[in-house]
């Protein structure tokens, strides 16, 4: 009886070991497959570019970098800022309506003032600004990897604008 019980325990011990090992291995395998779906490098386009000289820009919204780089350069109140052209609602691309002095998203109608602050439609927050700086040759460099968000109070950060 006693012997039988021991046997039984050993029996369940091996069964547990087997299934635990099997599930762990299978889980590991599937995790690696999951990891496989994230490539180690990406071929997305460059995230920074040189956007001419500060003098190239007039007061207002400049759309020359919208296509290709997805950036509006806006000169307002002595500051040059690089505004993202991605709607904070669902990532559509708003249009600049010069007559109404606002950005309007065609997807769900979010509206933004020239400075990028939202005022109508479903957009939850203002447009994002990118890092903008002057390089050693005095040219404007826009770096899209660094983002400044209004609602976090980041628009006062010295990298988020150039004084002109």
């Amino acid at each position: 009886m006693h012997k039988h019980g021991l046997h039984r325990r050993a029996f369940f011990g091996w069964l547990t070991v087997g299934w635990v090992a099997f599930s762990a291995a299978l889980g590991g395998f599937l995790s690696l497959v999951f990891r496989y779906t994230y490539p180690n490098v990406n071929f997305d386009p460059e995230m920074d570019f040189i956007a001419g000289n500060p003098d190239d820009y007039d007061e207002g919204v400049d759309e020359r970098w919208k296509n290709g780089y997805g950036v509006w350069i806006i000169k307002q109140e002595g500051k040059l800022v690089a505004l993202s052209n991605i709607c904070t609602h669902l990532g559509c691309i708003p249009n600049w309506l010069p007559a109404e002095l606002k950005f309007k998203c065609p997807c769900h109608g979010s509206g933004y003032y020239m400075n990028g602050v939202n005022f109508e439609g479903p957009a939850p927050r203002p447009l994002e600004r990118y890092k903008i700086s002057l390089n050693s040759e005095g040219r404007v460099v826009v770096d899209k990897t660094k983002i400044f968000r209004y609602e976090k109070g980041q628009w006062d950060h010295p990298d988020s604008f150039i004084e002109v």
Partner: protein
Amino acid sequence: MKELVNTLSDPKYSFTGVIIGFYLFMKYYRTIGTVKFFISSMIIILGVFIWMMQDPNFHAIIVWPDNVPIVILLFAVIFFTWFSIYKAAINDARIEGGETPVEGSVENREKVWTWPNLVYTELMAGTLCVVILVIWSIFLKAPLEEPANPTWAPNPAKAPWYFLGLQEMLVYFDPWMAGVVLPGLIIVGLIAIPYIDTNPKGNGYYTMAERKVAMGGFLFGWLALWVYLIIIGTFLRGPNWTFYGPFEVWDFHKVVAEANVNLSEFFWIKGLGISMPSNIFLREIVGLIVTTGYYVGLTLLCNRSQLGSSLMKSLGKIRYYLLILLLLTMGLLPVKMYLRWLFNLKYLVAMPEFEFNL
């Protein structure tokens, strides 16, 4: 007249209409579930539809190739909803008279040979389906627009039609709610139906009287929310996702006054007239209280009601609270819609710092 239709089809009014209609539908389903009613109403509907099709703007929206399936779906939904109500009405009458439902009659319980009865039925249905598909394909070309251009979004940019209900929800909710939480709850809710609905009656035959709550809940979600939102999203949302009546030109420049205000702004700025506190949670305290109140308060209220206590008894606690949670979350949508229309409320809780907006 067209002007009136345009105005009335604005969700503000039409959604209210749909809710009233749904109530009447549930109440008078036996009248609706008659052939006479169907034929007369079909004549009216088709007449109205043909009249509407005379309008170039409406015509243009309807015949846009990717919208055709929705028109087909629409008529199919009308027909099949009526048809099941029709059968349910018959069965309900029989049950009241002490008979079995039609499906349970001795004749229908008799077993028949699969070959050739079912096999040929299926074969013919399939063949007919191919015929429909071929004719559809011959007359309607699959849409193809300009080559993909990641730098320029068309206006309006719409998701596939079966997701337009979700896209329409985005007007009232943040993407995490409309795109993730609500669809997720829909799926979970659907899977949960058989486990929540413990009513043993109505299994295997059409009936309304024997499972009114289940029918009401499901049909409301299915017709009043899902199908209705798809129709709005597909036919009545134009450039800038602005609302356009069925007879309105999709004028790119149309502007609708929209100045939405968060609950916190209502409270601190408009109500108390002081600036917003810098602490996020303090700032949003009202919204947090209201949201908690919505779930907890309404649940408590429901517990006290007669229906609530009887449900609690019959379902048990887990089923009951799950049901309440699902219903309340489904109810969030109409609640949010009305809050938007009545008070221009943007968010109950607005925490863009955490991307948490409700």
